[in-house]
C-alpha cells in the first residue's frame, strides 16, 4: 500500500467513525443513568441487526484506523521499518478485527 | 604539501547572478561538457545578487527602448563606460528578463492588467526597473539556484578560489587552486575554460553593504596573474547604511533608497535638515550627491552620536511608513531601532565596485581560458552604476560567458598543464600565517577599513590617497607577520579572515593608486582637489597592472564606438524623459 492510500484509508475510516463515536457517546450517556448492567446492554443490543451493523462497521473502521495510526508511530518513534513494520501493523489490524468482531457478535447475537 | 587534483571542462567561480547563469548557459551550449561550479559559501546562498532589493533594469516599459536605456547608462557612467559592453547589457537584458520569467520561473511584480510593473530609479529617463517587491534578488537567485541544483552540474561548495594558475609559458590559464574550506585541504582543478564571477565587493571600507563572503578575492587573483584591471578608483557609496556601532554586523547594511524617494528627511546631529545646503533636490538627489552631502556634514562635526546622521520618516505617519516599508521597518526593529516612528542613524556605505578585469563584450580576458563576468568585470558601468544595472549586468554577462565558453571549448582539445612553481607559490602564500605567531586578524581589518574610509573614501585628495597608500602598505606588512593558529584547518574561519584581508589589502592599494591617477571627478570618484569632470571628449579610464611587486596605473582613452559626448542615439523627436515629474 502506498503512503497515500494509507493516509486516505486512515482519514476515511476516521470520517466513518466520527458519527458512530458521537452516537456511541450519546447512547452511553443515556444508558448510564441508573448504573450499567449486562442485562441492560444486552437487552438493548441482542438480536438487533441495526446495532450489529453499527458496531460492526465501527470495529472495522477502528481496526484499520488504529493500525495505520500505530504504524506511523512505530515508524517515527520506534524506528521500525519495512516488512517488520507492515507485519506488525497488519497484526494489530487483525487482532483488533478479531477481538472487535467477537465482541460485536457477543453483544448482538441471540 | 598534498594537493588533491581534479579535472573538468568548464569551471565557474561564484554562484551569484553571473555564476549561476553561466552554469545554465554552459550546459545549454555544450551539453556534453562537464560543468563544475565552485563557491566560497553554499550554492546561491552567498554573494550580493541575493541581496538585490530595488530591481532589474530592462527596457520593456511603455515607450522605453534599448537606445534610451543605453543613453542613460552612458550618461550615468559619465562617458566612461565601454560602449559595446553597455550596449550589450541593455540589449540582452530584454532577453534575460524573458528567460528569467519563462524558463527560470521568476515572477516579477505585475500591474493590475497583468503586464510587468516598471519603476524608475534615480538617473533613469523611463520607468524601467522590474522587481519583486523589495526582495528582487531573493526571487532571482532562488529560482536560478533551484535550476542549477536540479541539473547534473558538479558542485563544489565552500571551496574558496585562491589562485589562478597559468601554464608554464604563461600564455593561458591551466586551472584554479582552491581551499576546500570544510577540510582545510588544497584542491587544484584544471579546466578548459574558467569563468571568474566572484563579484568584487568593496568590503575594505568601514561601512559596507555586500555580503560577508565578498572580499575582492577575484580581483586580487587577477592582479597576481598579471591581468589588467580598469576603473579601479570607482567605488560606489550608498548614502544610507545603518549605523549601529562597530561591534555589530548590522552596521553598514542598506536602508533602501525608496525611503528618501518617499520623502524621508536626513537630519544632522542637531536634528536639522541639511541636504538642501548641498543640492536643490535635497534628499532626492542621486546617491553620489547625497553621500557627499552626508559626508560633508559629518566632517563639519554636525554628526549624530554614533558619527553619522539621522534618517527620519515619522512625519509621513508611522503607520504609513510601517506599511509601505514593512521589510525595512522590521529589519530595523530586529536590531532595536524604530524606523517608522523615531530617528535611525545612517552613514554612507560602500556598495558596489565598478572597477574590474578588462574584458571584451564576450567576457574574454587577455588570458586564454579565463573569462570574467558580473561585478568582477570592469567597463559596463564606467564611473557609476545605475541602480538596477548591477543585476542586469551580472545575469546578462553570466549568460554570455556560458554561451561563449561552451562554444570555445569545442576548439580546445586538451586540458593545459599548470606551472607547478606558481602552484606551490600560491600554496605557500596561503599557508604563510600558519607558521607565524597567532594574532588578531580582525583588528587589522578594522584598521584597513578606517584607513580606506578616511583617505580613499567618499571625498578624496591627492594627499589623502597618498596617506592611504602608506597606511594600507603598513597594514599589509603587519598582516604578513600576523599568524593564525593552524592546529585545525577544517572550517577555520580565522584563516579565511586572514586570506580575506590579504585580498582586501592588495586591491585597496590599487584603488588608492588608481584614484591618484584620475585627476578629475567623475561619478563615484570625487576629488576635492580636482572637482571638475574634465574634458569629456578626452575622457580616459585607468588601467592598473601588477608585474612582480610593481603596480603601474596608466590612462587609456575611452573609445566612443557608438556615441560621442554631447550626442545621442535617440531620435530627435524623443522627449528628454518619460518619467512623470513628481
Amino acid at each position, binding site marked *: 500500500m502506498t503512503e497515500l492510500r494509507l493516509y486516505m484509508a486512515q*482519514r476515511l475510516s*476516521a*470520517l466513518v*467513525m*466520527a458519527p458512530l*463515536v*458521537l452516537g456511541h*457517546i450519546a447512547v*452511553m*450517556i443515556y444508558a*448510564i*443513568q441508573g*448504573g*450499567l*448492567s*449486562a*442485562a441492560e*446492554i*444486552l437487552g438493548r443490543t441482542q438480536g438487533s441487526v441495526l446495532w450489529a451493523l453499527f458496531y460492526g462497521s465501527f*470495529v472495522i473502521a*477502528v481496526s484499520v484506523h*488504529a493500525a495505520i*495510526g*500505530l504504524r506511523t*508511530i512505530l515508524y517515527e518513534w520506534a524506528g521500525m521499518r519495512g516488512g517488520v513494520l507492515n507485519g506488525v501493523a497488519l497484526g*494489530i489490524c487483525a*487482532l*483488533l478485527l478479531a*477481538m*472487535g468482531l*467477537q*465482541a460485536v*457478535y*457477543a*453483544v448482538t*447475537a441471540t | 604539501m598534498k594537493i588533491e587534483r581534479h579535472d573538468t571542462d568548464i569551471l565557474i567561480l561564484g554562484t551569484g547572478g553571473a555564476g549561476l547563469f553561466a552554469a545554465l548557459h554552459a550546459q545549454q551550449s555544450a551539453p556534453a561538457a562537464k560543468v563544475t561550479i565552485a563557491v566560497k559559501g553554499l550554492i546561491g546562498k552567498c554573494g550580493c545578487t541575493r541581496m538585490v532589493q530595488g530591481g532589474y533594469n530592462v527596457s520593456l516599459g511603455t515607450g522605453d527602448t534599448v537606445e534610451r536605456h543605453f543613453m542613460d547608462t552612458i550618461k550615468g557612467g559619465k562617458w566612461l563606460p565601454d560602449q559595446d559592453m553597455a550596449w550589450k547589457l541593455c540589449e540582452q537584458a530584454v532577453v534575460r528578463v524573458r528567460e528569467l520569467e519563462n524558463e527560470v520561473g521568476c515572477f516579477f511584480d505585475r500591474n493590475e492588467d497583468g503586464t510587468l510593473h516598471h519603476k524608475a530609479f534615480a538617473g533613469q529617463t523611463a520607468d524601467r526597473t522590474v522587481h519583486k517587491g523589495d526582495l528582487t534578488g531573493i526571487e532571482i537567485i532562488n529560482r536560478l539556484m533551484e535550476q542549477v541544483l536540479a541539473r547534473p552540474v558538479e558542485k563544489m561548495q565552500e571551496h574558496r578560489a585562491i589562485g589562478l594558475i597559468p601554464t608554464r609559458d604563461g600564455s593561458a590559464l591551466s586551472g584554479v587552486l582552491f581551499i576546500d574550506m570544510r577540510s582545510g585541504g588544497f584542491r587544484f582543478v584544471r579546466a578548459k575554460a574558467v569563468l571568474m564571477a566572484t563579484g568584487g565587493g568593496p568590503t575594505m571600507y568601514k561601512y559596507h553593504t555586500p555580503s560577508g563572503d565578498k572580499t575582492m578575492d577575484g580581483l586580487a587573483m587577477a592582479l597576481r596573474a598579471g591581468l589588467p584591471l580598469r576603473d579601479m578608483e570607482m567605488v560606489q557609496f550608498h548614502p544610507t547604511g545603518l549605523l549601529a556601532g562597530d561591534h555589530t554586523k548590522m552596521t553598514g547594511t542598506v536602508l533602501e533608497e525608496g525611503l528618501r524617494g518617499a520623502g524621508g528627511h536626513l537630519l544632522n546631529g542637531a536634528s536639522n535638515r541639511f541636504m538642501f545646503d548641498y543640492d536643490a533636490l535635497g534628499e532626492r538627489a542621486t546617491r553620489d550627491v547625497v553621500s557627499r552631502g552626508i559626508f560633508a556634514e559629518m566632517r563639519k562635526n554636525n554628526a549624530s552620536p554614533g558619527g553619522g546622521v539621522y534618517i527620519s520618516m515619522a512625519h509621513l505617519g508611522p503607520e504609513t511608513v510601517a506599511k509601505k516599508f514593512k521589510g525595512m521597518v522590521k529589519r530595523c526593529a530586529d536590531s532595536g531601532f524604530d524606523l517608522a516612528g523615531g530617528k535611525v542613524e545612517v552613514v554612507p556605505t560602500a556598495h558596489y565596485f565598478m572597477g574590474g578585469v578588462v574584458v571584451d563584450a564576450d567576457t574574454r580576458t587577455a588570458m586564454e581560458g579565463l573569462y570574467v563576468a558580473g561585478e568582477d568585470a570592469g567597463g559596463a558601468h564606467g564611473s557609476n552604476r545605475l541602480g538596477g544595472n548591477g543585476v542586469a549586468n551580472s545575469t546578462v554577462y553570466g549568460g554570455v560567458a556560458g554561451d561563449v565558453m561552451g562554444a570555445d571549448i569545442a576548439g580546445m582539445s586538451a586540458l593545459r598543464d599548470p606551472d607547478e612553481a606558481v602552484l606551490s607559490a600560491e600554496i605557500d602564500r596561503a599557508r604563510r600565517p600558519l607558521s607565524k605567531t597567532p594574532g588578531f586578524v580582525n583588528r587589522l581589518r578594522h584598521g584597513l577599513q578606517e584607513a580606506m574610509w578616511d583617505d580613499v573614501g567618499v571625498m578624496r585628495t591627492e594627499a589623502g590617497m597618498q596617506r592611504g597608500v602608506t597606511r594600507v602598505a603598513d597594514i599589509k606588512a603587519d598582516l604578513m607577520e600576523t599568524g593564525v593558529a593552524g592546529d585545525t584547518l577544517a572550517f577555520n574561519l580565522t584563516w579565511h579572515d586572514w586570506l580575506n584581508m590579504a585580498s582586501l589589502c592588495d586591491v585597496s592599494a590599487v584603488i588608492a593608486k588608481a584614484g591618484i591617477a584620475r585627476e578629475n571627478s567623475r561619478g563615484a570618484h570625487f576629488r576635492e582637489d580636482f572637482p571638475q569632470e574634465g574634458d569629456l571628449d578626452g575622457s580616459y579610464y585607468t588601467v592598473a597592472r601588477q608585474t612582480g611587486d610593481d603596480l603601474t596605473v596608466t590612462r587609456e582613452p575611452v573609445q566612443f564606438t557608438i556615441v560621442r559626448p554631447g550626442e545621442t542615439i535617440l531620435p530627435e523627436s524623443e522627449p528628454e524623459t518619460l518619467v512623470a515629474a513628481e
Partner: protein
Amino acid sequence: MIRPHRTHPLWFAFIVHRISGIALALFLPLHFWILSYALNAPERLDGFLHWTDYPLVKVAEFGLVFLLAVHVFGGLRLMALEWLPWSANQKTLAAAAVGVSLLISGTFFLRAL
C-alpha cells in the same frame, strides 16, 4: 520533552492527539475483551460493570471518554485543516475541540453520578 521549539498551541494539539490515539488503541482490546464476556459469561460482564460504581473507575471512565472526545475533535480539526480551504482560525479550533470534548465528557460524568 517539551523543548522550546515546541511551545506553541498547535504542537500541543498534535501531542494530545497522538497520546490520546495511543491510549485509545491500548484501551480498545480491553474493551472488546470485556464485552465478549456478554456471550459466554454475562455474570462476569456484570462484575466488570459494577466496578463502575467506584469513584476511581469513574475517573478512569471520564478519562477515556475525554480521550475519545479530544481525539475525535482533534481529528476533525485536522481533516478540516487539510481538506477544507485554509482558515487562520487554527488555534481557536484547537481550543474549541478541547472545550467541547470536556463539555461532553463532563455531562457524561455528571449524569453517571
